């Protein structure tokens, strides 16, 4: 890898000036490297981080037909990585005008990395530097412990999608509160709402009573406030204690939990494993925001490369070339989802709508379609609005909040269905729905979403009990056994996983995919409704068994 030449670097610096003038904010320093095919071959298994730790699986082709991106939040072909300074990679034969376009795109990404709050935890350090020291540490451990290092890497990676990204992020945004205790929080947030099932009226009265106590008794307010409650609900204090304990075990993710609680890992001889696990966990956390902002990040970068390129005075004469390349990147496909195109259009849509003042209370109150269409408060706040969105949202709330019927209709979007036509022996794509609700749902379904596992400790046999909060999608069954063996190794004891699976159907002839004569007229059997059942996997002594629980 070598740096780009001075001529190209100068172009980049020119791009930076123009991007800054347009309002993008990013650090001064960036590094641009020319990569050859050979470099890419080495970089891609390391998700473009040149200094990532070595692991033998990186040398083997990994079967990826199943959910490549559920497995790895990182993209193996990212052009720019979120480091300090940000590093970006280029082909060595790009013409200047193309480099200008890519530079703007890259600057869009860098601005996003350095301003979007989901990346907050990556702002304070340089990941490549961290990775380099981690890599050295792992290499040193490998010299000492041999293959066991790779086992620990393997088993930790087996659960590195369960890293509790949002919990990790939340301390950065803790509102500064003082004045009341956890007991008050519990009373108002949990007990009154769930336990005692109070009416709203009563709830408000309790708040008033608390405020009065504060006024009257000052420091003694809480004590006074709770005396009455203890009399009224004698069970309150026990429930509160219990909730504190529960919170302790469910408050952390699986990897962190194992590191803290596993007796096996905390033996003197095994303590080195903790540092390996920490590396895996940090690496995963580093990549988490990337996959959760794919649509926004690419949309934002595309918005800016389009906007800034067209304003750039240096590249006149290449508009046609640009148009061709840009269309390849940002055209909406007839069928399929392109995050560049979708995100960019949504940003344009939001800018336009905000310019006309449509994200205001006044506008929301208008029911009349015609008036809504013609509403224009000419606030000219569009840019400001999209800047605040790039700062505060992730893909889920971006899509969930802003995909509305106006947007779907304007861009002629639809949900495409795919069905089999047995007569023509062909898969047919058809327009399934043009409703914004359906479109939104379809996009949300396709977003990255790791399973939610609740951790419980069961005293019998020192069991680690993982309770999968079922969300309508089963886990990949063939991965369960080996993953549990890995967790069992790290835990040093019995591990159980409770999850939902499709209950076995009574055997019936499979619908043949060719739509052969089995489907004669009048013989259509209705597809039986899917029925779910809870199952319990138990891993003990490296043996995994499964049984039904109901």
């Amino acid at each position, binding site marked *: 890898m070598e740096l780009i030449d001075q001529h190209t670097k100068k172009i980049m610096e020119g791009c930076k000036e123009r991007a800054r003038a347009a309002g993008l904010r990013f650090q001064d320093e960036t590094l641009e490297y020319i990569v050859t095919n050979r470099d*890419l071959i080495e970089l*891609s298994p390391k998700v473009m981080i040149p200094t990532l730790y070595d692991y*033998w*699986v990186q*040398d*083997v082709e*990994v079967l990826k037909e*199943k*959910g490549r991106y*559920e*497995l790895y939040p990182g993209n*193996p*072909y*990212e052009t720019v990585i979120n480091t300090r300074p940000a590093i970006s990679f*280029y082909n060595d034969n790009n013409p200047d005008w*193309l480099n200008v376009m*890519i530079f703007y795109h890259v600057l869009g990404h860098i601005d996003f990395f350095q301003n979007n709050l989901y990346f907050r935890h990556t702002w304070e350090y340089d990941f490549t530097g961290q990775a380099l020291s981690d890599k050295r540490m792992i290499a040193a451990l490998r010299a000492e412990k041999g*293959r066991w290092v790779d*086992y620990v890497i393997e088993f930790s990676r087996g659960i590195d*999608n369960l890293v509790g990204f949002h919990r990790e992020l939340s301390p950065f945004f803790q509102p500064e509160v003082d004045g009341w205790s956890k007991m008050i929080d519990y009373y108002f947030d949990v007990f009154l709402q769930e336990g005692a099932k109070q009416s709203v009226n009563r709830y408000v009265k309790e708040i008033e009573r608390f405020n009065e106590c504060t006024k009257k008794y000052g420091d003694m307010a809480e004590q006074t406030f709770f005396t009455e409650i203890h009399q009224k609900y004698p069970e309150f204090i026990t429930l509160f204690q219990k909730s504190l304990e529960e919170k302790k075990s469910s408050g952390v993710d699986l990897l962190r939990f194992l590191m803290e609680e596993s007796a096996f890992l905390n033996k003197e001889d095994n303590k080195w494993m903790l540092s390996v696990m920490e590396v895996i966990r940090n690496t995963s956390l580093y990549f988490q925001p990337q996959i959760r902002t794919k*649509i926004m990040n690419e949309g934002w970068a595309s918005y800016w490369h389009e906007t800034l390129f067209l304003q750039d005075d240096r590249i006149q004469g290449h508009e046609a070339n640009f148009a061709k390349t840009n269309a390849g990147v940002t055209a909406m*496909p*007839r*069928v*399929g*989802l*392109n*995050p560049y195109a979708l995100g960019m259009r949504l940003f344009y849509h939001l800018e336009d709508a905000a310019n006309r003042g449509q994200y205001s209370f006044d506008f929301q109150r208008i029911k009349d379609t015609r008036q809504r269409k013609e509403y224009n408060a000419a606030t000219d706040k569009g840019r400001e609005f999209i800047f605040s969105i790039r700062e505060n949202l992730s893909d889920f709330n971006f899509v969930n909040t802003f995909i509305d019927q106006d947007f779907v209709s304007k861009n*002629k*979007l*639809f*949900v*495409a*269905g*795919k069905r089999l036509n047995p007569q023509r*022996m*062909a*898969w047919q*794509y*058809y*327009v*399934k729905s043009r409703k914004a609700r359906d479109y939104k749902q*379809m996009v949300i379904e396709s977003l990255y*979403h*790791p399973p939610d596992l609740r951790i419980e400790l069961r005293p019998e046999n020192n069991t680690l009990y993982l309770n999968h909060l079922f969300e309508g*999608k089963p*886990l*990949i069954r063939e*991965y369960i*056994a*080996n*993953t549990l*063996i890995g967790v069992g190794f790290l835990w040093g004891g019995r591990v159980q996983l409770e999850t939902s699976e499709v209950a076995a159907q009574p*055997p019936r002839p499979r619908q043949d*995919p*060719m739509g*052969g004569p*089995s489907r004669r007229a009048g013989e259509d059997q209705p597809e*039986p409704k899917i029925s779910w059942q809870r199952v319990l996997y138990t891993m003990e002594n*490296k043996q995994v068994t499964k049984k039904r629980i109901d």
Partner: protein
Amino acid sequence: MDKKLRALYQHLKERGLSEEQERIILFELEHKSSHAADGKSRGTGEGVSSAQTIYEHNDFELLQAVTALKAPYVSRIRSLDELLERDHQREDDGFPRKIRVGRMIKPGKDSQDKVVVVPTTTEEKLMHDPSFKPPEEDESAGGSGDGDEGEVIGEQPVQEQEGGEGSGPGQGEGGAHEVESSAYDLGKILTEQFELPNLQEKGKKRSLTRYTYDLTDQNRGFGQVLDKKATLRRILKTNISLGNVADADSVDPANFLIAPNDRIYRILSKEKDFESQAMVFFLRDYSGSMDGKPTELVVSQHVLIYSWLLYQYEKQVETRFILHDTEAKEVDDFYTYYNSKVAGGTQVFSAYKLVNEIVSTENLARDYNIYIFHGTDGDDWDTEGEQALVELKQMLTYANRVGVTIAENGYGRSGNTEVEKYLKESGLLTEKPDLLRLDVMQRDASEQRLIEGIKRIIS
């Protein structure tokens, strides 16, 4: 051809068919396609490309037109042996194996015994199954452009999609990420790593056109090594005939007269080598019902068996490839065998008959250990196996092993295919367990299962 099939169908129908059987036969009849070897035909369904998900898009491809590169495996540090050794170590450490020597079949047209070994692995995690969808729902994706709700905007032939996705044999997972290895090496890996059994030495050894060179011949006057004992004997003979040996009881070798011609040497000579050799018949059902997975399973298994035999017989293996639907034909190379598309009906006996004919006309039974492996989905229009069983019995008289693999296509009920039924009813399986083996697997069988199946068929 079609007419002939229809006539056959009528004939069978008159003899009585169950509903299930009729359904399958009709299905194959109506499955209109030909056996043409799979080319790279890739039409577009009216501008509908296969839908990509959000996360499959990346900057490099879109902005810089750099496609996802794969390293040629040879440039990687680790060799296959190293990987397998690591995998073996895993077992000793008490963890399940992780390396799969997967998807290794890509025979070229000219180099028959080249297979491609792609060591693969999976990283298992607890994660949602992205391929899951409730049965009542169609697959849905994003889309844009004109068209009313319900309007069809494009279509894509079923066959093509399956082919393109790599479920059809011979395509898909190619790429550069692979080790070209000879089938012999693969056989070695299978034998050693997966503990496939070693063949028991067969009694009869047959000569080959292979030679070794050895100092076995004698030659007077010159040669490589002096044969002292023979030379002494020769000298004695000469001296007796010269009358130089007066008293047989006290011979003094110092008095011997020695002619140059009396020296006897050992001389390097060509020797015929005697070793077992094998003739393997691979039979594949390429009828319409074999579409997709069953074919893939059968062909993969046949490559594995072929590799294993190649190793066992020290490369002294000859192969014959036979494809059959209602009629059987022999094809020249593995490439054609592997890549021919499925179509047509099924009559198993046609293939068996062809094997018998080949063996008797070429007189193969005398010179070869004969192995016959047949892969099918278990459908047979000859539902009772009347003709097939006769031919099979004939085969068993000369074959070392007949292995039948049934890869269920999933259209009928499991464990209830025609071939399986009539094989079991005939009692041949229990009568001659060392000659005839049967392996039945589901259409979703894994590679591990395939190897297990091979063990069952050949051990």
